[in-house]
């Protein structure tokens, strides 16, 4: 599952923070998950719990889903990804590589493929709370 790869990346990043800041225990990890990547939150949570290291054993993972907001560079139109209907095959492609939406969707107002992902692309590590 791709969620496992993402979870591994999150854990690696938390460990980096732990080492850099000299934390002896992590209490809370806040993660933002972009709607565009359509991450299965249950699988992500399970993978995170399985990949926890000793210093993270009591850590709570708080996952916030962020709506994917797109803006057309050609006409300035703003819209949400949820307005676009993709079949399951295309959804899976976007799940693996969110930028592939440029192959599959167009600005609903002017039809341009030249749009930017303002928010809600993928997974971000927001904060790490712990004991020094």
């Amino acid at each position, binding site marked *: *599952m*791709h969620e*496992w*790869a*993402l979870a*591994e*990346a*999150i854990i*690696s*990043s938390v460990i*980096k*923070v732990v080492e850099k*800041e000299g*934390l002896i225990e992590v*209490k*809370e990890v806040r993660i*933002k998950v972009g709607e565009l990547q359509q991450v299965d939150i249950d699988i992500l949570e399970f*993978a995170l719990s399985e990949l926890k290291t000793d210093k993270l054993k009591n850590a709570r993972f708080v996952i916030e889903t962020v709506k994917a907001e797109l803006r057309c560079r050609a006409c300035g139109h703003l819209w949400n990804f949820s307005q676009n209907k993709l079949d399951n095959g295309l959804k899976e*492609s*976007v799940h*693996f*590589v*969110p*930028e*592939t939406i*440029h*192959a*599959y969707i167009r600005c609903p107002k002017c039809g341009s*493929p*030249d749009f*930017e992902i303002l928010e809600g*692309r*993928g*997974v*971000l*590590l*927001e*904060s*790490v*709370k*712990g*004991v*020094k």
Partner: protein
Amino acid sequence: MCCLRALKESNSPVDPRVNVIDKRLENVKRIVAVSSGKGGVGKSLIASTLALSLVKKGFTVGLFDADFTSPSIHRILGVKKLEIKEERGILPMQIHGLKYMSIVAFSGQKALPLRGVDVSNVLIELFSATLWGSLDYLVIDMPPGIGDATLDIIRLVKRIEFLIVCTPSLLAFETVEKLLTLLRELKVPVIGVIENMKMKQVFSIKDKVAGAGFPFLGEVPFDLDVENVLGDVEALFGTAFAKKLDEIVPRIIFSQSA
């Protein structure tokens, strides 16, 4: 108890993907970016044939098409449908004895127009999620020039080495010279330069490459037969192009990067 923003300096969230790239590549012995200043010099053919030649010599090899807006390796390898598998990450396709990954697994034959920031994101996504496993060589077919993809590869892949392709043209060499200068400035290892599509002795880059202090690996002839064997790997090996490149491959294997 203290609360730390994930990235204190900018007070912005951290992209966790970049922190797992080293781990994904830890069992890859050499990572070779096949690059050039110009497009159309034969990078994809050199990268593909190099990877296949290394397989024939008994090495374990991965081939990554990093030219996301103009991928072409699937045509050279004769891949009809690039099918990847998931197993706690993305497993590359196994074909012709090598592991192969390309954006076409996700974009198919659709045009994929990407800005620089998108190219960076795709590169990070695929490097962080692809499970290459143990390899002797990972050969990367780069997009032309010194833009986002080149800068990101240098930033993200610490053990990257560059193999430069140039045609016998002043126009191509002018851009290659800039690429070589940049790589030297950034202290990025360069295996050497291959002169591709050699036609006649009107202009040779051999002396210019040597003069710049980089290894000149050899000349590969312009071979009209190559176009007729695209997609047929065995027939590709029968071309003068592949035979000449095969002679150069040991120089890459035993190279000491400049």
